Each structure stands twice: as C-alpha cells, then as structure tokens.
C-alpha cells in the first residue's frame, strides 16, 4: 500500500459521501458543501491512483488544479443563486416543483 493508493481509496469514499449528500440533503448551502467534498474525492482519486508507485505525475496535478478552479467557480455561482433565492423567498431549500 502506498500513500497514492491510500488517498485514492479515501477519494472514492469522499466522492460517495459527497454524492449522497447532494442527493439527500435539502438545505442548499450544505448541498454546496457536499458537492465540494465530492469534487475533492474525485481529485484525490485522479492524483492518488496515478501515483500508486509514489512517483508524482505532473499531468494529473495540472488537471486537479484546473478542477479546483472549476469547483470554486461552480461554488461561487451556486452560492450567489442561493443568496438570491433566500433574498426572494426567505428559504434555503428548493421549493417542491409542482410538476407543471
């Protein structure tokens, strides 16, 4: 077992935790947290799995840098929308869609 593999395994667990959080949690800011956990999990897998032999690989490193920036962009947008929604409705949860 190398640290690379170990963190890849942790990454899978984090990803699953994050996805479950996004699906199950109704409160929007916390959903955003869950999404970030999910992303971190994927990044850990990307880097960790690629260096099972413990030699760093710059390609996934660069990919994760890209991924982190994308994640923060998504987080900022999501928070802005949540804040707007809260300003308009006073709620932090999505209203049930009436389906029509």
């Amino acid at each position, binding site marked *: 077992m190398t640290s690379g593999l170990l963190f890849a395994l942790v990454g899978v667990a984090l990803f699953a935790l994050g996805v479950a959080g996004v699906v199950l949690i109704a409160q929007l800011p916390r959903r955003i947290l869950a999404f970030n956990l999910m992303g971190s999990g994927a990044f850990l897998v990307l880097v960790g799995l690629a260096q099972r032999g413990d030699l760093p*690989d710059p390609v996934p*490193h660069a990919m994760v840098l890209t991924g982190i920036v994308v994640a923060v962009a998504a987080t900022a947008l999501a*928070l802005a929308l949540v804040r707007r929604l809260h300003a308009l409705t006073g709620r932090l949860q999505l209203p049930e869609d009436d389906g029509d």
Partner: protein
Amino acid sequence: MKALAKTFVVVWLALVFVAAAIGAMLELGPAALDLRAPVTDHLTDTGVSHPVTAVLLNYRGYDTLLEIAVLLLALLGILAAGGAAGSAAPKAAHPMLQASARLAAPLMILVAVYLLWAGAFLPGGAFQAGAVLAAAAVLLHLVGLTRGWDSPRLRLRLGLAGGFALFLAVAAALLTQGALLGFPPAWAGELIMLIEAGLTVSLGLILAGFFLFLSRDLR
C-alpha cells in the same frame, strides 16, 4: 417514509459503489502509459522549468484556457442572476483594523507578484497569485476601505476579461502560425509569463468579484 426509503437506497448504493471501487482499485495493475517521461523530455521546449506549470500552460494549456472561461462564466452567471442594483455602503471597521489592512494589502500584492514569478520554476503561479490578490481586495472591503461592486463599469469589465482576452489572443495568434497555443520554444517562456501576468490581475478581480458583486444583496 418515502424519504427514509430514499435515504436507504442512496446509502446502500453508495456503500456498494465504494466497496466495488476499492476492490477494483486494489487489484489494478500498472498503467499502460506513463506521461512522466515525455513531460520531462520536452520540458526545455515549454519555456518553463516546473513540470506542473508546463502541463498547465503548455502541454494542456487548452484546458486552462477553457477553465478561465469557466471562471469568467461563473462571474457572468452571478451578474446575470441579478439582484438589487447599487452597492452597500461600506461599514467602516475599527481604525486599527483599517490601518493594518492598509499595511497588509501592499504586502499581499508583493506576495502575489512573487508567486507569479516563482511559478515558472517552483510551485505557484497565476492561480495562487490571483487568489492572494483577491484576498487583498476582499480584506479592504471587509474593513470598509472599498465599496462593494455594482454593475461593472467598462474599466472593471476590461480588467475582469482582460486576462482571458490576452490568453485567447495569444492562442489565436499562435493558431494562425500553425497550432492553437503552439508556443515556439524560443518565445514560450516570455509568452507564458505574459499570459500569467494578465491572468493574475484578472483572476484576482474575478475571485474578488465573487464577493464584491454579492455584497449588493445585503441591503
């Protein structure tokens, strides 16, 4: 009841997935390809000596180009989602805090410049530098020295989009010479530094914008 069933199903699926993935990872053999060698082999042609920066801005610079677009896009989304116009009046903080912020801001800019310069051969680069710049701006806002942003004026828009526009312009100029982002080895270092400098300013503004454009819904 329905919620409980949903929770049960999701958790069960997640556990099964984790178990399967871990099992599959543990039995995984060595990868078929290894990009470490080619990354190092061509490093001299990339214009930078730090491999991660080389991947980020040269080998896979196209990813980065699109990623900056994503960042700019998020800002656009925030602007488009709207809210009341006009910015919150700055709430003046304690003079002591203000004084230390005045002191800290130039220092932070210095750090940003160092990070940018160092990125060519050490960990660091435009993103980290931009984040520090943004932090400086937010700090000034928090202590009440700058106002939150409303609709961006032309100068601000130029600043926000400038880094990306510069990047894109370089990419397009190189495309007319043969390949998108095909840096000629002789000029690669300078061009990348130019791009990174532009990006640092714009990223700083964009990241700061994530805060400062939102301050308007405080009123």
